[in-house]
C-alpha cells in the first residue's frame, strides 16, 4: 500500500467514525428529547419525584423540555449543572429537594408566555410585573419604610441571597443601589410566585356532553392550582391549605370570603400581626363590600378592577344608581372613601330621612 492510499484509508476511517459519532449523538439527542421523561430525565433518581408530580399535573401533556429546555439550552451552564449532579450522586449528597434557581425560574417563565400569551400580557400590564428596581429602589417607599429581610417574602422570593446582599444601604436615607446591576430589570414577582407548574391537576378537557348538566350548574369544581411560594420553607403551599384570615374591626369580627384564592392575596396584602382591619397593607373588603373576595373585582393576572362595578351593579339595574360616579376611590383616587372599606354611613347619616326615602323608593321599584 503506498502512502497516498494509506492516507486515504485513514481519512476514510476517521470520516466514518466522525459520521457515526455525529449521527449517533444526533439520534441519541433526538431520542432523549422526544422519549418519555420516565426513560430520560427520570434516569437520574434525583429527578424522579419531579417527573412523577409532573405526570399528575395539568401540564402532563407537555414534555420536560417544553418548559425547561434541553440539556444544551443554556450551553455550558446546563452541562456543568448536569455534571455536578453526577458528582453529587457519587458523593452521595442528598439532592432530593433540588429546586430551580431564580435564573432558571425566569427562563421557564419565558416558556409560560409561549402558551399563556394572553395571561402573560395581562400580567405585564398589572402591578405584579414589577422589577427589582421598581421594588428596591423606590425612593418614597425606602424613605418611609426601611428595607428589611421580609421584603423578600413577596418580592424576589426566589433569590437565594439575603436582602443586604441585594440592595444597599439598608437605611431610610439613600441613594439606594442594587449590588448586582443585572437585577435591575429582573421580574420580582414571577409566575411561580403564585403558580406551581407541577401542582396536581388535570389538563383542560371538554365537559361530558351526554350529561349537559355537567357543562353548566353541575360542573365539578376543580381544586385551584394556585400556590403560595413560602420562601422561608422553600415550598409551594396550595391555596386551599393556606390559613383563612381572621380579621377584626374594633373588636367586631369581619366576614371574610371563603375563596381560597383570596388567601394567596392576603399572604402579601396582609394586616398587622393582631389582624386589625385597615392596618398595614390590609385591603380585605368591609363596609358595603364585606365578604367579597378580591377576585370578585380584580382580574387574576392584570389585577384590573375597572369593570368590577358593572359585574354587580349594571347600568340597567332596578336601583338606577350609577355606583361608578359615587364619591369613592374608584372614581377619584384621592377620595376619602376607599372602595375596599366604604360603607353607606360614610356619606349618609345613619338616620338621614332623605336616604330612608330613597331606599324606600328603590325597594318599591
Amino acid at each position, binding site marked *: 500500500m503506498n502512502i497516498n492510499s494509506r492516507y*486515504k484509508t485513514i481519512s476514510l476511517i476517521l470520516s466514518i467514525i466522525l459520521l457515526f459519532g455525529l449521527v449517533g449523538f444526533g439520534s*441519541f439527542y433526538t431520542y432523549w428529547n422526544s422519549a418519555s421523561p420516565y*426513560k430520560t430525565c427520570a434516569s437520574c433518581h434525583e429527578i424522579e419525584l419531579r417527573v412523577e408530580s409532573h405526570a399528575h399535573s395539568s401540564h402532563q401533556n407537555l414534555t420536560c423540555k417544553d418548559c425547561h429546555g434541553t440539556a444544551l439550552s443554556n450551553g455550558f451552564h446546563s452541562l456543568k449543572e448536569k455534571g455536578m449532579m453526577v458528582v453529587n450522586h457519587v458523593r452521595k449528597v442528598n439532592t432530593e429537594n433540588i429546586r430551580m434557581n431564580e435564573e432558571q425560574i425566569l427562563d421557564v417563565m419565558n416558556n409560560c408566555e409561549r402558551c399563556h400569551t394572553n395571561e402573560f400580557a395581562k400580567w405585564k400590564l398589572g402591578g405584579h410585573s414589577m422589577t427589582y428596581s421598581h421594588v428596591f429602589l423606590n425612593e418614597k417607599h425606602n424613605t418611609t419604610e426601611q428595607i428589611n429581610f421580609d*421584603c423578600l417574602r413577596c418580592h424576589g422570593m426566589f433569590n437565594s441571597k439575603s436582602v443586604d446582599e441585594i440592595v444597599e444601604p439598608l437605611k431610610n436615607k439613600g441613594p439606594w443601589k442594587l449590588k448586582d446591576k443585572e437585577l435591575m430589570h429582573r421580574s420580582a414577582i414571577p409566575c411561580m410566585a403564585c403558580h406551581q407548574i407541577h401542582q396536581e391537576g388535570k389538563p383542560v378537557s371538554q365537559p361530558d356532553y351526554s350529561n349537559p348538566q355537567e357543562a353548566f350548574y353541575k360542573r365539578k369544581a376543580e381544586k385551584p392550582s394556585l400556590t403560595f411560594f413560602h420562601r422561608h*420553607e422553600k415550598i409551594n403551599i396550595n391555596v386551599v391549605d393556606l390559613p383563612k384570615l381572621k380579621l377584626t374591626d374594633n373588636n367586631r369580627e369581619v366576614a371574610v370570603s371563603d375563596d381560597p384564592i383570596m388567601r394567596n392575596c392576603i399572604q402579601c396584602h*396582609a394586616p398587622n400581626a393582631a389582624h386589625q382591619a385597615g392596618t*398595614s397593607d390590609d385591603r380585605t373588603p368591609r363596609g358595603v363590600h364585606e365578604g367579597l373576595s378580591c377576585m370578585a373585582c380584580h382580574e387574576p393576572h392584570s389585577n384590573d378592577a375597572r369593570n368590577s362595578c358593572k359585574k354587580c351593579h349594571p347600568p340597567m339595574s332596578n336601583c338606577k344608581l350609577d355606583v361608578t360616579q359615587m364619591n369613592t376611590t374608584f372614581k377619584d383616587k384621592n377620595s376619602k372613601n376607599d372602595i375596599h372599606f366604604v360603607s353607606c354611613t360614610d356619606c349618609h347619616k345613619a338616620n338621614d330621612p332623605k336616604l330612608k326615602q330613597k331606599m324606600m323608593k328603590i325597594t318599591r321599584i
Partner: protein
Amino acid sequence: MDVKNKISRRKFLSLSLVGIGGISLLSLGALNKKPISKWRFFTENEVLILDALVEQIIPTDESMGARDAGATNFIDKQLMGPYQQFQKDYRDGLKLLQQSSMEKFNSKFEELNWENQTILLKLIDKDELKHSHWEKGADKKFFSMVIRHTMQSFYGSPKHGGNKNNVSYKMLKLDTPIIIGQNRYK
C-alpha cells in the same frame, strides 16, 4: 485510485446503517430501566406494615391521621438522609413486628383489626411480649423510635415529607405561613 482499497458506496451505506442501529439499540438498552418506585428505602411490604403502625400512633379522627399525613414518606425520606443510622433498626424492627403478629394472631400486622393491632403494640410498649423474637427491650426501643419519628413527621415542616397539606397546623389552628403585613405607609 487503487481498486483494492476502494470501498463501494453500497458497503459504506450499509456500514453506516449498522453503526447507527447499534448506537440506537445501545441507547435504548441503557435507558430501559425498571419502573419508578415511590419509595426510597422501604419495600412495598414494609410500607404496608409501617402505614398501619403510624396510624395506630396518630389515628385519623376529624383530621388526617399519620398514615394519610405522610409519616411513612417522612421516615422513608429521612432514612436516606440524616437518619441513615436507623436503617437497620427499621429493616429488622418491621420484620420482627410482622413475626410477632403472626405468632400471636396468626395474621399479618397490617391485616389485623384495629383492636388487635393496639393489643400487640401495648404489649410491646409494656415490654410484655412473650415468646418474642426480639432481644430484651428491643421491641420497646423500636416502638419508641417509631413514635418519635411519627411525631416529628406530623408536627414538622411539610418540606421534610410529612405533615401533608399542613394538617397538624390546621388541627392546632396555627396560621402557617403566618399572616403579617408590612408597616405600610400612607
